[in-house]
């Protein structure tokens, strides 16, 4: 942890979200300070993506409050989040395939002179940004459709940085990347922290999480299941929190390898459920 100010930039207090009969989030709390990388982990369906979407304004929350720099705000639309200074890189990237790289980078925050697009300023800025991030793509003027998966990922991350946001949310940024690109993205996350951005990093990859995160916030079945400082927490403790510590595949397996007889009983019990 580098500089952690007293008031969190973004704080969620008791946030709940329902989709029809599904209670996707229940009373979730989360705090992100400036210059802090918070890893958000949890199993599939734990509510990570839903939580991110409530922050980004894609799904308005049903209950609870969102505080921005200490005061309560409503985030009902993606625009609200952008105005506050929250930038999101979605897992599905949300790029427009038919538009070129420059247009995608500046989509929703185009540089204009009057009401006319300033293509030259945008292209210049895009090149500078991609160069500072050491992002290699064939050209900034080709449609995103013709980029490879990794290239699309870095374009999507670069796009989040266009508006100089205070909070950057990365949803599984390294899932589709090769070794070198993963390292670049992790470097990028550290650079964001050094520049004083708050980062929310969703990842299944514990190595990535432990490499860059300051705190790990665990979600389980739509609820908080602990916030751990990365330095003082072991890998196993996080896994335990993710999977539900007492009875899970990991402990069952450990029990099974230790005493094969006892394991049979557990499995039978599991099947009976």
């Amino acid at each position, binding site marked *: 942890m580098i500089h952690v100010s007293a008031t969190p930039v973004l704080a969620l207090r008791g946030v709940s979200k329902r989709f029809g009969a599904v209670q996707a989030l229940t009373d979730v709390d989360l705090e992100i300070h400036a210059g802090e990388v918070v890893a958000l982990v949890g199993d599939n369906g734990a509510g990570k993506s839903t939580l991110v979407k409530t922050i980004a304004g894609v799904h308005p929350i049903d209950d609870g409050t969102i505080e921005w720099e200490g005061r309560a705000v409503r985030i009902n639309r*993606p625009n609200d989040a952008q105005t506050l200074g929250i930038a999101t890189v979605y897992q599905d990237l949300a790029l427009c395939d038919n*538009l070129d790289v420059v247009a995608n980078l500046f989509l*929703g925050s185009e540089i204009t002179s009057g009401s006319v697009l300033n293509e030259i300023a945008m292209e210049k800025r895009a090149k500078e940004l991609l160069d500072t991030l*050491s992002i290699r793509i064939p050209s900034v003027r080709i449609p995103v459709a013709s980029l*490879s998966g990794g290239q699309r990922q870095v374009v999507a991350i670069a796009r989040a940085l266009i508006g100089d946001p205070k909070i950057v949310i990365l949803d599984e940024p390294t899932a589709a990347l090769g070794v070198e690109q993963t390292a670049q993205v992790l470097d990028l996350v550290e650079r964001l922290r050094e520049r004083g951005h708050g980062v929310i990093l969703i990842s299944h990859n514990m190595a990535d999480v432990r490499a860059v995160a300051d705190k790990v916030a665990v979600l389980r079945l739509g609820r908080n299941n602990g916030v751990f400082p990365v330095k003082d927490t072991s890998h196993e403790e996080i896994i335990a929190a993710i999977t539900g510590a007492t009875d899970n595949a990991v402990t069952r397996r450990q029990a099974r390898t230790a005493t094969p007889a006892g394991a049979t009983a557990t499995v039978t019990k599991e099947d009976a459920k």
Partner: protein
Amino acid sequence: MSDLTKTPEPGTPAEQSAATKAPAGAAPAAEQSAAPLPAVDPRLLVREEGLKGYWTEFTRKVRGGELGSLPVFIGLIVIAIVFQLQNDKFLSASSVANIAVYSAGLGIMAVGIVFVLILGEIDLSVGSVAGVGAAVWAVLNVSNGMNDWLAVAIALLSGLALGLLHGVFFAKIGVPAFVVTLAGFLGWSGLQIWMLGSEGSINTPSGGIVENLTGYYFEDKAAAYGLALVAVLGYAASLLLDAKRRKAASLPSRPTSEIVLRTAVVAVFCFVVAYVLNEPEGARGLPLALVLFLAVLVVADFVARRTTFGRQVFAVGGSAEAARRAGINVDRVRIIVFGLSGMLAAFGGLFVASLSGGATKNLGSGNTLMLVIAAAVIGGTSLFGGRGKVWSALLGMIVIQSIQQGLNLLGMASEIQYMITGAVLLAAVVIDSVSRRTQKTAGRA
């Protein structure tokens, strides 16, 4: 990227955006002089300087399925040659003027459809909205003696209102655009017939605005040549200015040879048309309808390519969800596009009324809708959304009207004309689909 890695022969041109046609990625030498940029992808294919590079770029694009307007140009040339051989009046002044004037009304309606198609939707109501627009104007101006300009303005606004209504039903309530505008197609033609009353038609008064829309010609020869000159100079100036600004920003810019070539092609085309409209026997000069059509095209093209709104339309057409997450008000974009389509439909309706001598019950019915959509598609706007150009309305409508004009000159029956126009539309859609598939395999779609 896949197409690049497969063909890494040196000298193959760089990837290039069709929208801006900016050469992508300057040659390494140019890059070094501008700024020491380490991050140039070694696999990046660099476009050669000069005309040779332009040609290889062009052939590569065609092979990759980016046909653009090429099939239409070839089609137009074939049409011109075939009909001229059959009947030497086809390229005469009156025939060309006819094509221009008949293209204008439906072409303006097609501009609206281009926007709707870029959005990835369809508007089936344009014919009926055109009829309503003409009827509103006729009832206000002819039957109730309202001021000509005011009546035209109200007709346009009523088209806008109907279009916005379609947009609200589509965007806010979520009824598929196909169904909303189909309901509009039926409903508004009923409204049109009801407004025109028992007689079913209101004739255009002579000398009024609507009569002049297609009846007025700038007989002074300076008009046609002047417009051609302004168009060529404007085109060249915009290219040069763009190149200069890009150079100043040390971005790759068009080579001068390419600017000269492009300007020359545009100049030849403009002045040949101006000459045919002015000089031969029976020439009446520059038709006002053509001027208005071109004005609508220039404004609409500017909106589509150079404004935030245009960018948003393309974004929604490419991926509505991505656009929404980028903070674009998708509903607003959709409603405005349908409103725009309605207003341009009403404007086009006034042209049709002008040509047919008045607002009638049948105005906008029959094959109006089909011709308008066909024009947009033949011109190269994709039915699948996200890709298209405003100028395709002009190109497609010229193709359709040229065929009709040619078949009329040959005295072909209208049933034959329908069949031939249908075949041309089918060919255009086939080209669209095939080129899309080629682009996918070349990694460009």
